[in-house]
């Protein structure tokens, strides 16, 4: 049974269903309660579940993220919402030094089943301090799983296995996706290890994740008009990366362009490119291309923000370059 819902409502429904199914699940974060969530994901939840389980926090990112981690250690299943990825930097100590580290540092005695949801990305003219894509910072850290659901279906379905995971899971939700409406089948399941092939093609692999997926799919449609068959891979699990799906696709198409809203230097695109070199170099017919954000703090005016981010025309140009067309 599928229904048409927004990404925002899909995330909200996933949280509600999880809280209904398991008393240990609760959500905490800035403005999740009375305000109804910065992106309205948790709207109305405090009325239905009460303020203990829809827990407003002070503006103390390190404190409340650490408290969520501690509550997970104490047997709860917390969902910590961090309003934006830039604020998450204030909680990075807890995420890196506690959540990601305790299992190993304790010789496997302890585990931290916390889920941390973070909104990410640019496109709303929020300027340099509210427009980052720092997913790769988190994807760098052993001990974390990092997800970037781009579809309504994944936004709903990835939360359950994330909550069932005995270890910390960070979920990035791109701010430009909350308003998208797509079909949702609540019964369909997803694992936390597989990339998804969103479009089949034979000439080139366009590899992306999160908010760049729809730009990439649009570029693929336009390339088709020029007779170029592009395969689109949605990484959706940023750690651990699904090398097999990436290499299988590149083995078939022999060309790849990676589309990543992060800054180019030290980007996730760089990591994927390196893995293609390591695992698929001999099947390549062209250098791996990258379409990333320009190396600049994201500017406020619309035309400059657009110029800084990956866009459909740049993806098309990069694909054509790889194809020598």
């Amino acid at each position, binding site marked *: 049974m599928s229904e048409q819902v927004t990404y925002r409502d899909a995330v909200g429904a996933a949280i509600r269903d999880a809280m209904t199914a398991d008393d240990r699940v609760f959500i905490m974060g800035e403005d999740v309660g009375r305000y109804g969530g910065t992106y309205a994901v948790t709207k109305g939840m405090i009325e239905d579940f009460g303020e203990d389980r829809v827990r407003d926090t002070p503006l*103390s990112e390190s404190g409340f993220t650490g*408290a969520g981690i501690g*509550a997970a250690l*104490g047997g709860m299943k917390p969902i910590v919402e961090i309003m934006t990825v830039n604020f998450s930097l204030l909680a990075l100590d807890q995420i890196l030094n506690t959540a990601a580290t*305790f*299992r*190993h540092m*304790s010789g496997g*005695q302890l585990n931290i089943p916390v889920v941390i949801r973070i909104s990410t990305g640019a496109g709303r003219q929020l300027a340099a301090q509210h427009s980052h894509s720092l997913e790769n910072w988190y994807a760098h850290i052993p001990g974390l*799983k990092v997800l970037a659901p781009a579809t309504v279906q994944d936004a709903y379905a990835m939360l359950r296995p994330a909550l069932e995971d005995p270890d910390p899971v960070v979920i990035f939700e791109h701010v430009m996706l909350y308003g998208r409406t797509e079909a949702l089948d609540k019964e369909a399941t997803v694992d936390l290890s597989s990339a998804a092939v969103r479009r089949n093609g034979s000439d080139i692999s366009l590899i992306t994740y999160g908010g760049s997926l729809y730009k990439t799919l649009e570029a693929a449609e336009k390339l088709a008009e020029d007779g170029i068959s592009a395969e689109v891979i949605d990484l959706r699990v940023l750690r651990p990366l699904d090398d097999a799906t990436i290499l299988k696709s590149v083995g078939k198409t022999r060309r790849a362009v990676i589309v990543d809203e992060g800054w180019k230097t030290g980007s996730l695109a760089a990591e994927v490119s390196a893995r293609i070199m390591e695992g698929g170099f001999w099947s390549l017919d062209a250098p791996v291309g990258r379409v990333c954000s320009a190396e600049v703090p994201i500017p406020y005016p619309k035309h400059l923000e657009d110029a800084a981010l990956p866009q459909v025309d740049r993806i098309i140009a990069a694909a054509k370059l790889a194809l020598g067309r």
Partner: protein
Amino acid sequence: MSAKDKDLRPHLTRDHCLDLMRNMLRIRRFEEKAAELYTQEKIRGFLHLYIGEEAVATGVMQTLTPEDAIVATYREHGHALVRGVPMTGVMAEMYGKSGGVSKGRGGSMHIFSAEHRFYGGNAIVGGGLPLAVGLALADKMQNRPNVTVCFFGEGAAAEGEFHESLNLAALWQLPVLFVCENNLYAMGTALARSESETDIHAKAASYKITSEAVDGMNVVDVEAAARRAVAAVRDGKGPYFLECRTYRFRAHSMFDPQLYRSKDEVTEWEEKGPIRRFSDWVTKSGLLHADDIEAIEADIAKEVEDAVAFAEASPWEEVETLLEDVGAAS
């Protein structure tokens, strides 16, 4: 003093005095051995000794049940030992051996024991406070009558996590006992060089947390204060803050040349050291005899010797296990 307050005083029976003495001496002798082993390069990395501060962990820990949780710092050997984590496992951990409590993965700064609800062993100053708040939140949400005790140094009071955590614990009325081990120096920076308000327990009071300062060199005073504090926390009265004023006799770590304090200052504090003071008092008052203390010393010498033998005999983890325990085995 009400009848209830009287119940909260430590009962200084002979057995209890033996127990306090044993706990403090176990820490002291264990760490003296650890320092020696460090010079022999058996223990590497950072080694932070608790010598001089034994009364704090010993006094506070008397008041806890096995279900209570403990969060400590990188200076936590003493806390682990008093909590009942076996000395063998702690010593082997410091060797980095397979028989260590954390299979050698953590070392001196990261002693953990899930069985004892002993949650480290945290080398990020202030990093344990949010964790303690969360453990207490879990207990409160699951209606368990447990207390989480969070030990940290006065240096942590300069961290944002200290203030965030105190606020959260007070706001949500969580069962946390914050124990500040104020040894006057954050590594080599004296309190007055880093804090505009040097009265640490006053900071807690500003978050509406019941707060008191206690002589951290007197194990009986610490225990008495901790009994009051734990009773209040367990009674659902929200968090409590104890500032234990103490002193570290040894260097911050084995790399520290101690340029920031005088030998006279250290000597002065050593004269009011917790073991010396308690030992004088219990013998003068006739509660214990010199023979009792000698017997304890003999037991501990044997225990330390056994712990070293255990650590020496314990194998190293196989290199093939390097990537284990990063995530759940799939």
